[in-house]
């Protein structure tokens, strides 16, 4: 429609944003041409989300200018952004579970369109971009990929000139990612610019025409991904050389240490997933990865392993002993430790000091409790030990968990469990939302732990991480595990298919199972 004119669709000049204690964006300038698919690249904490929130009007810059089609604008709030023609698909969806797709979309619109007209409009957009979605479904019954489509349709209904996508593929199977890319290419061909935020380098190489790289709030590079490699962009992102994980070659595995035997749990709540005859076996010194798209039972599996939800005695075994009916404290005493996905509010309590957070799980196994009372001296000493052993950037054991950055808190949590010298450990999303330095340290710590004979289970949505870290792999889908594959044997395609169940869509019989 429009010839690629020289005037930028969007331009940022010297944009700066400060929060207490951190300079989130420091004098950032870049521009996006009409119809361009432009990547905004950087690791977690580099300032991408903050920058984009300013473009969308959720935050306002402390300094600098935003120009739209060459003219300076002030984007006071998301409504103003939408009026300009900027649409945004957030990483975390703004959906109302109890309402229908139609109601959700209606809420996101500024204009008051009567519901039947709106429904027709929605169906038109869905057809135009080849998306599949039923406007009358209640959101809580939808898969994550389908929920993302609601967000996309919301943005598309505005007929946007700039579409911002914030980490869109972390919740999709490889096939769904392909479909998303098709939709984005169609949009770009029609003159809509796309600002694509991600830290997934191979996707950016595949999709984008230009990339702006942020590090520590500053703009460090602008490049054309089509001319770069994943590795070169990674080095620009991190600002140094990538460290390889050090693994002692030719490891021997010991006997089977940690297993699940036909673990079954019925579905809890409307949005839960039932675990069905789930079995795995991890040997001493082995790292088993569990790949899968979010929402397929990972949380349920973790709860069963930690003891937050009780199962039958023989369904979870540590060195042959049935632990399934024991609570978390008992399991830790026997040597099974667990790190759940959520740092805040689950693995740690933000308002508590690191010392107390240490006592959260270690208090019995490490002997802090005497006569019902906590030996605060030992509690504090342990926390200090974790802090120094894992290079946690904190003032000391008296710092609150909430004052730590994501990476540092994750290091503390992992350290807290690892220093208990568990016999087996299960971790979920060990490096989600963590900067590259901390992520590398955490992965190295896991590898070292395995070398000491621990049996490790890693659940992650990051396939790259699993392939790097694990010895063998299974895929979890709708509460079931696939066959075990040795890393290096299975292809990404096969894994993707297993993750998606049946090609990413739900077949009728699977859907019925989902509602059972």
């Amino acid at each position, binding site marked *: 429609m429009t010839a690629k004119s020289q005037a930028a669709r969007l331009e940022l000049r010297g944009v700066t944003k400060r929060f207490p204690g951190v300079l989130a964006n420091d004098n950032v300038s870049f521009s996006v041409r009409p119809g361009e698919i432009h990547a905004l690249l950087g690791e977690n904490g580099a300032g991408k989300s903050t920058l984009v929130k300013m473009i969308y009007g959720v935050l306002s810059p402390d300094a600098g200018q935003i120009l739209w089609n060459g003219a300076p604008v002030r984007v006071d709030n998301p409504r103003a952004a939408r009026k300009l023609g900027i649409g945004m698909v957030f990483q975390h969806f703004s959906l109302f579970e109890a309402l229908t797709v139609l109601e959700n979309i209606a809420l996101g619109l500024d204009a008051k369109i009567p519901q039947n007209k709106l429904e027709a409009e929605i169906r038109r957009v869905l057809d135009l971009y080849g998306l599949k979605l039923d406007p009358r479904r209640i959101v809580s019954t939808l898969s994550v990929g389908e929920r993302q489509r609601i967000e996309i349709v919301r943005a598309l209904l505005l007929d946007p000139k700039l579409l911002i996508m914030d980490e869109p593929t972390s919740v999709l199977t490889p096939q769904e990612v392909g479909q998303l890319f098709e939709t984005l290419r169609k949009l770009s061909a029609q003159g809509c610019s796309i600002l694509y935020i991600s830290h997934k380098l191979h996707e950016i190489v595949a999709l984008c025409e230009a990339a702006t790289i942020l590090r520590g709030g500053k703009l460090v590079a602008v490049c054309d991904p089509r001319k770069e490699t994943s590795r070169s962009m990674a080095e620009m992102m991190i600002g140094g050389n990538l460290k390889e994980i050090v693994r002692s070659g030719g490891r021997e595995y010991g006997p089977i240490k940690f297993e699940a035997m036909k673990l079954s749990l019925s579905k809890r709540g409307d949005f839960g997933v039932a675990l069905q005859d789930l079995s795995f076996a991890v040997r001493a010194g082995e790292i088993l990865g569990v790949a899968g798209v979010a929402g397929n039972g990972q949380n349920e599996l973790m709860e069963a392993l930690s003891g937050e939800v009780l199962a039958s005695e023989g369904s979870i075994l540590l060195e042959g002993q049935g632990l399934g009916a024991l609570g978390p404290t008992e399991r830790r005493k026997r040597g099974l430790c667990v790190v759940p996905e959520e740092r805040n509010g689950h693995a740690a309590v933000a308002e508590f000091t690191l010392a*107390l957070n240490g006592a959260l799980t270690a208090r019995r196994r490490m002997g802090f409790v005497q006569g019902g*009372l906590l030996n605060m001296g030992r509690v504090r000493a342990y926390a200090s030990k974790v802090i120094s052993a894992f290079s946690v950037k904190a003032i000391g054991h008296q710092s609150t968990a909430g004052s730590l950055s994501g990476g540092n808190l994750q290091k503390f949590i992992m350290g807290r469990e690892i220093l208990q010298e568990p016999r087996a450990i299960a971790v979920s999303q060990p490096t989600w939302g963590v900067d590259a330095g901390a992520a590398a340290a955490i992965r190295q710590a896991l590898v070292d732990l395995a070398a000491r004979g621990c049996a490790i289970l890693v659940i992650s949505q990051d396939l790259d991480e699993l392939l790097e870290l694990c010895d063998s792999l299974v895929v979890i889908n709708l509460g079931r595990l696939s066959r075990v594959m040795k890393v290096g044997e299975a292809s990404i395609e096969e894994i993707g298919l297993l993750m998606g169940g049946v090609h990413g869509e739900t077949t009728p019989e699977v859907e019925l199972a989902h509602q059972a």
Partner: protein
Amino acid sequence: MRIRLEKRRELSRVMLALSPIGAVVMTMIVGAIIFAALGYDGPRAVMEIFFTPVLAPYKWPDVATKAAPLILIALGLTLGNQAKVWNIGAEGQYLLGALGGAGVAILTKDMHGPWILPLMIVAGVAAGALWAAPVAWLRNRYGVNEILSSLMLVYVALQLLNYLVTGPWKDPNGQNFPQTAPYTPDQKLPADLFGLPFPPGLYVAFALALAFWLVMARSEFGLGVRIVGEAPKAARYAGYRESDAVWSTMLISGAMAGLAGVLETTTQSGQLNLGFPSGYGFTAIIVSFLGRLHPLGIVLAGIVLAISYVGGQVAQTTVHVPSATAGLFQAMMLFFILASDVLVRRRLRIEWGSRTAAARA
């Protein structure tokens, strides 16, 4: 100009200590203004309510008498408040405690021995806990909101008191007044413990405050209660079950309220009548918050609120303010402590135009 509240990175220790004091001071100021506006001598009313009881030693036994039950009940409530288990029905458990003691008193009215009084106290504690038990059970089993269930039971307890005192437990020699027979000497607490004119309940309150501090700050159980209230998912992860916390905190707060109730009746006046319900169960909620959910703070807050009760009575005679005055001041203290509580976690920031000038509070 924009006023914003920003999250602090660390809780402000200064504000933690100052906020209760600030709340009381603000209450005095605003209270004086309100009463002046309504035509009373505002500043004098505040003087009488807050300072006269402190400055007049002959009023101290009165203050102590009111402080003891407030502190006892509030200690129990605090544990629950930390776990976010809201026991609003302490008044009912307090009544049941008194009834439990009265029941034993009636059974033993012709007996003698040093075992009678302890038995009454045990009965009172058990009765209070028993009245709290259904609340815990309903919440765990059916998810019934404990605020509503505990409160409904207060009204039931009031009716129970009414029935017993006007019916089966009425003093046959009492000229048909709705009251129980006066307690025998075996059934009453000593008036002059340690040579001081303070009710024994006060010493019990101090001792239990220490015990509660130990449990809350240093025990594994206390840690669990805090985690359950702060982050329920983390609590389960740490091996604490919410249902256990609901049972233990409700039973403990019921027991404490029951203890306060039976101790109240075994004072020198020693009997139970329709005038017994005094609202301590509700005022204790204010004590708990004003004391920042900390046993030491609760002792101080209990004393402050007891002062306001006694002072309120004084002010009624000297400044002619109505009886509702004490309650009004107590409510204001709660408002101000809740408001100043916010400043512990958040910082006040005033922005002028595009430049920021931080007004720290």
